[in-house]
């Protein structure tokens, strides 16, 4: 026997003993540490202090009633402490959205809705609020001061708008969501829905709103966020969540995963070959396509994973002719667009409104998508598309030769030079530029070349200096114009109106709300009434000069009138309104708020004689 063996034994014993020692000290050390931990715990138990905050800033919103740079009826009033609550009424210090009820769906400029909208998506407008400190929310109070009940969804984001570094992934979690319900009283209330607990701190809250059941504009005063700084221990409350809620949660979570999991499916293995597809082989291709056409996009993606035949059906571009991604705005990103590329080559209607913000969609991703899928595009919705820049519009102009409808509502970050490219879209029939920074030269160019225009919205386009010039160009070039939105066009005068009325004989809808430079004494409204007999909707909101003569002229000439807004004039009497109501049998909306000669008694009398007309009279107290 060599001396190596006993040496090895001794060495290994030695080593073993050392290891054990180390282990023992470790355990001893751990025990010591845990004792220290217990001591420290008993000394200072962290109390979860509730933080109550009002919104610090309004970051983004889809529309509002008030004027840009004003503090009356604008969304910026939602930040800070309440100014009106608990009073009820129509006050300037509140946040008001642009529309209410179903009136905008009933006028000539109404657009056909996208089919295949998921049944739980009702949102029409949104507002995003930033708070000072990120907290785990425990409650959200919405102080509504007029016609409450429009808030239908509250979401929280993991992104901190005040942090310097951009987050890798922005998560949106739905705190609460419900179908629109009617609240009978227009009185103020504090709305506190039961929100779910989330696992990340947030200081960015988004409210989504649906006013279709409201009798008048809904007005919000403030939003209060209650939360805790430390992550709360999941309480028993979670076990009381409705089973339906869980289902919906699963749905929401899967929506985003669908697009991703699809790719994974591909990358792993090819789907196993099935020799038969059961009864599905007996159904004609077109029939399966028809059945599938009723599924929402996420369901389509889920169905695609079931078998190869259905996968083929679900990826068929015929399923993606009308595609609305607005309900999934929180999860649509460049990757999603990439997946949809191959399927959307025949897309005609595309809704990307509200998507892509905070870096979710890049200019290159969007451009690539349009380069592949833009040839058949007829209708493109890009409302609140803050990711858009000049290049994007250039791509649209280049890649979408058949484009007829373009919606750039509230794209207020688009630089003015971007709008020059719209003039190249000569087949445009509908153009929405509400709250954009389009400038005069670009607009004149658009009007010059887009002679097919039937629907044009220039509401709150503040960068245009001379609306008379715009109106005369319209009168000269846009003969097919049927609806025109000139809401808050600050300097249009009777000259512009005259040229407009002479040139655009087909006008059925004209919104001249809050245009202060129009004076009835010039006869502009009279000439409007006489030259535009097809008028169905006329808004003369807050034009203080509207008088009895104008109403009588409308009664005599515009018998098809359906909607009329004469808010805030002192010079219209009940007698002329009666004439109007007798003559215009189709009138369904008449807004006489703040008309001093039309008090509540008159409204009641008119309602009794003309029960089919909704006569709106707003109040401040």
């Amino acid at each position: 026997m060599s001396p190596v063996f006993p040496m090895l034994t001794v060495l290994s014993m030695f080593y073993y003993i050392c290891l054990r020692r180390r282990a023992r000290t470790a355990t001893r050390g751990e025990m010591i540490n845990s004792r220290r931990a217990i001591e420290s715990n008993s000394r200072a138990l962290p109390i979860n202090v509730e933080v109550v905050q009002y919104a610090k800033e309004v970051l983004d919103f889809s529309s509002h009633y008030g004027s840009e740079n004003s503090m009356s009826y604008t969304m910026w009033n939602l930040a800070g402490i309440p100014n009106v609550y608990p009073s009820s009424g129509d006050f300037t210090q509140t946040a008001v959205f642009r529309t209410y009820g179903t009136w905008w769906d009933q006028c000539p400029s109404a657009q056909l809705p996208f089919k295949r909208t998921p049944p739980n998506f009702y949102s029409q407008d949104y507002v995003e609020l930033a708070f000072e400190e990120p907290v785990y929310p425990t409650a959200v109070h919405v102080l509504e001061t007029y016609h409450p009940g429009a808030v239908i969804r509250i979401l929280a984001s993991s992104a901190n708008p005040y942090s310097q570094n951009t987050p890798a992934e922005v998560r949106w979690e739905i705190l609460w969501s419900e179908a629109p319900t009617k609240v009978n009283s227009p009185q103020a209330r504090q709305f506190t829905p039961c929100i779910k607990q989330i696992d990340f701190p947030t200081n960015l809250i988004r409210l989504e709103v649906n006013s279709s059941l409201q009798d008048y504009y809904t007005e919000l005063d403030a939003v209060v966020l209650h939360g805790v700084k430390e992550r709360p221990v999941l309480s028993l409350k979670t076990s009381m969540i409705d089973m339906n809620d869980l289902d919906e949660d699963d749905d929401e979570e899967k929506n985003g995963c669908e697009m991703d999991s699809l790719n994974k499916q591909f990358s792993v293995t090819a789907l196993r070959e099935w020799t038969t597809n059961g009864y599905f082989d007996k159904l004609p291709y077109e029939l399966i396509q028809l059945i599938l056409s009723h599924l929402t996009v996420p369901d389509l993606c889920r169905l695609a994973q079931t078998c190869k035949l259905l996968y083929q059906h679900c990826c068929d571009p015929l399923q993606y002719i009308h595609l609305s991604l607005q309900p999934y705005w929180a999860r649509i990103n460049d990757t999603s667009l990439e997946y949809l590329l191959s399927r959307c080559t025949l897309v005609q209607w595309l809704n990307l409104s509200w998507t892509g913000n905070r870096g979710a969609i890049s200019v290159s991703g969007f451009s690539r998508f349009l380069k592949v899928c833009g040839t058949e595009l007829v209708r493109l919705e890009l409302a609140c598309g803050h990711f858009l820049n000049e290049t994007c519009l250039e791509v649209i102009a280049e890649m979408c030769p058949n484009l007829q409808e373009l919606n750039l509502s509230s794209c207020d970050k688009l630089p003015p030079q971007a709008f020059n490219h719209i003039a190249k879209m000569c087949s445009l029939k509908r153009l929405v530029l509400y709250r954009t920074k389009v400038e005069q030269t670009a607009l004149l160019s658009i009007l010059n070349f887009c002679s097919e225009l039937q629907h044009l919205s220039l509401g709150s386009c503040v960068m245009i200096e001379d609306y008379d010039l715009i109106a005369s160009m319209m009168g000269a070039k846009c003969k097919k114009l049927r609806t025109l939105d000139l809401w808050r066009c600050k300097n249009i005068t009777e000259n512009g109106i005259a040229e407009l009325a002479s040139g655009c004989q087909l006008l059925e809808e004209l919104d001249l709300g809050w245009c202060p430079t129009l004076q009835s004494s010039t006869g502009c409204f009279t000439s409007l009434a006489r030259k535009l007999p097809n008028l169905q909707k006329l808004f003369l909101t807050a034009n203080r000069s509207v008088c009895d003569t104008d109403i009588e002229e409308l009664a005599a000439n515009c018998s098809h009138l359906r909607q009329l807004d004469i808010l805030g004039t002192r010079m219209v009497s009940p007698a002329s309104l009666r004439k109007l109501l007798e003559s215009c049998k189709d009138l369904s909306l008449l807004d006489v708020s703040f008309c001093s000669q039309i008090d509540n008694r008159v409204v009641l009398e008119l309602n009794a004689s003309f029960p089919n007309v909704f006569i709106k009279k707003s109040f401040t107290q």
Partner: protein
Amino acid sequence: MFSVLSYGRLVARAVLGGLSQTDSRDYSLVTASCGFGKDFRKGILKKGMCYGDDACFVARHRSADVLGVADGVGGWRDYGVDPSQFSGTLMRTCERLVKEGRFVPSNPVGILTTSYCELLQNKVPLLGSSTACIVVLDRTSHRLHTANLGDSGFLVVRGGEVVHRSDEQQHYFNTPFQLSIAPPEAEGVVLSDSPDAADSTTFDVQLGDIILTATDGLFDNMPDYMILQELKKLKNSNYESIQQTARSIAEQAHELAYDPTYMSPFAQFACDNGLNVRGGKPDDITVLLSIVAEYTD
């Protein structure tokens, strides 16, 4: 040797003393208001800061203290318009603008212009007219920026003397410059001055300066020396003593206004213009009395 040291010390002290002249403290205005409506009818409870057809406001912001008065033109009453609605809404809008920080301290005319534009954004068809006087104290630069449209105004009193005052703006006798919103049929007829027509001044203030902002109800009834007499009684910058002094000034003006034999500044001016009148001028009186003090949160 000694002289060198002592000389050196003197020089050092002088230099250091000169350096410490720049006051880095933030200033603020401690303000009290008082007033009387012309028809002092009990039971008519107007919202605070409204005296008859006059209105006023006091607002604080991180960067500045702002106050203002507005004198509603009473002639509108003959046409069925409540004159206090315009002046009250104007002042409340100015207050809101300041609180939300939508203003530049060195541009008080901007506050008037923006506020006037906001009045036009109201759904309610406001009618009426008023004068306006806005006083802004910039906390860090220690400058008083003012804008005055019409015959309201302010005085800055230092060491018992008036060191700065506003100028009256009149078109003709008893017709001051005024902001107005007229009914459309009377657009050309009703006097309406643009907010840009306001007089604007800038003045450096010191701690302890007294600023008196008031409508013409005060200045037409109380000459300078009487006002200064009352201000002498102001001992410290406590809110209570300022409130007391403001009250005594307003009360005195109110009494003098109804004195038929007293030769008020208004009567004096009328006489100078050929009208033989005597006595006070019954009018709404609004007094805002402020002292420049150190800023405490």
